[in-house]
């Protein structure tokens, strides 16, 4: 074998003259390379979209009729500048929690809700304040609310947790975010289906299990992937609700 007769580096002695130029070049290359990679990778990140907490709107307080899909909705009857009457508002708790325990007693009743809005394009959601400050019964007559069946549909798109998608996290969808989405969904945060193309004008549909159940366990394995699925679609005000038939879930190729 060939022997190394070149300069010999001993750690606790000064580096040999003949090696210094080489080592200096390696150091410069290393430092410049790392800075360059930092910049290249840093600026190559995808746009996470425009979803956000709308703290700039301030605290929102509106009144409407509580519905359970079972994920709680508010059919707004008395709105404001950002949440007009006639809008259907998805309700969520703080963090990865839900407000079902507070909404169930108020089902079908008039309630006042208060919290901060999340908004991403046409999708919005209200993160309620804690306790009765977030949702409480309101005085007044209950207007009957219509639910219109739109029949059975086959859709392509992605199952997301609605809250991160709406702007609680940027980015708030995709496979790198899947575990986070699952954790939200386990906390019964309302899931949202992003359709490849609008369904009756809506790109975002609240997605539930069949027959008024929560998103079935099977669907968790498909979260954040691009899938095709079938289900009954119904219109509740300006919100579409998709009743997923879990047997039809398929990963798109």
């Amino acid at each position: 074998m060939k022997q190394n007769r070149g300069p010999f580096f001993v750690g606790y002695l000064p580096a040999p003259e003949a090696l210094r130029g080489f080592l200096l070049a390696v150091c410069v290359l290393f430092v410049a390379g790392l800075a360059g990679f930092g910049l290249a990778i840093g600026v190559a990140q995808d746009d996470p979209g425009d979803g956000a907490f709308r703290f700039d709107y301030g605290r929102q307080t509106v009144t409407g009729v509580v519905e359970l899909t079972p994920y709680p909705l508010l059919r707004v009857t008395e709105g404001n500048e950002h949440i007009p009457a006639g809008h259907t508002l998805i309700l969520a708790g703080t963090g990865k929690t839900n407000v079902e325990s507070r909404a169930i007693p108020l089902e079908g009743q008039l309630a006042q809700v208060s919290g901060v809005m999340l908004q991403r394009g046409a999708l919005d959601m209200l993160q309620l304040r804690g306790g009765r400050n977030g949702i409480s019964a309101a005085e007044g007559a209950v207007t009957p609310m219509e639910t219109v069946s739109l029949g059975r549909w086959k859709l392509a798109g992605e199952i997301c947790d609605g809250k991160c998608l709406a702007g609680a996290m940027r980015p708030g969808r995709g496979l790198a975010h899947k575990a986070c989405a699952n954790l939200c969904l386990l906390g019964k945060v309302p899931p949202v289906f992003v359709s490849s193309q609008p369904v009756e004008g809506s790109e975002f549909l609240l997605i539930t299990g069949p027959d008024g159940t929560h998103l079935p366990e099977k669907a968790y394995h498909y979260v954040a992937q691009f899938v095709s699925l079938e289900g009954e679609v119904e219109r509740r005000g300006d919100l579409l609700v998709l009743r997923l038939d879990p047997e039809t879930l398929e990963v798109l190729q």
Partner: protein
Amino acid sequence: MSVKYIPVQWNWNKYIYDAVMLLGAGLFLYVFLYAAPGILSHERPINAQVHNARAFGACAFVMLTVILCIGPLARLDPRFLPLLYNRRHFGVMTAFVAITHAGYIVDWYFAFSASNKYEALLFANTSYGQLAGFPFEVFGIFALFTLILLAATSHDFWMKFLSPPVWKRIHYLIYPAYLSVVAHVSFGILQDQQNHVFTAIFVGGALAVGVLHLLAALKDRRTDAATSTAAADWVEVCDVAEMNDGFAKIRLLANGERVAVYLNEGRLSAISNSCAHQNGPLGEGRIIDCLVTCPWHGFQYDVTNGRSPAPFTEKVPTYNLKMDGTAVFVDPRANPPGTYVEPLRLRDGTTS
């Protein structure tokens, strides 16, 4: 080269090594964290926690990739050996960068729920039966645990206590850990990323690690083939004319041991090729001030008895030699570490 253990035996080269390493990693993080956001023209910024997690994750990947290139580079070209000298500090720093990445992830994606965040990390995604959507976090967890284990066992005490071969076997876990990191990235961010600059850097870095290890392994195999010997009572090393003063000839014995036969001021001595410190290849070192000096960390041995000079206490096995004409032969049965063997004196004019 410890007399009494201390946390770190600093010297100027280690200071320089660590300074360059910290400067590189620091610049990577600074540029990623503070320069990149201004250049990105997003309508709304990426969440700071995600941005930080990505910065530290990408930094850990790049650092680990550089670290893994050092070993094969030094085997292919000894000029890279100085990079090996303090590689453990590089590894420990990488472990800290990786821990920071994991911290941001756990405190962001797995926080805010009613469950303990570490439990959530384990149960949130259980899609183990599929490739897309596979809980790639487990790859990261394995790699992180390995990095922490390797960093925690990096002190010289562990090398001596566990013995270099056992220590080395533990530290070979870096290879499954790197594959795990590659899987962590491939089944994580690579699934979503639409801008492929990172993909290109990631694939390029990982392939560089793979190819360099392959090249180094092929070179090692050629070297082994050239130095291996058949079983015999006395194994021929070489003709004495092939030897150079201050340098060794290495022979791979039939029992798997390597012996380094040194020519030192006209006298031949043989010691084990494995340094007592980290089993570095003593035969690839050279004699400095009458002492064999290891090319990895500069541990030194008296070539006649395999002992480090006082106050150091390291010892390596020695071997008996004999000459037959101008041919040098070694007895493949090693003497216990530190055994003195009378060097073979060459007649004048038998060596170059």
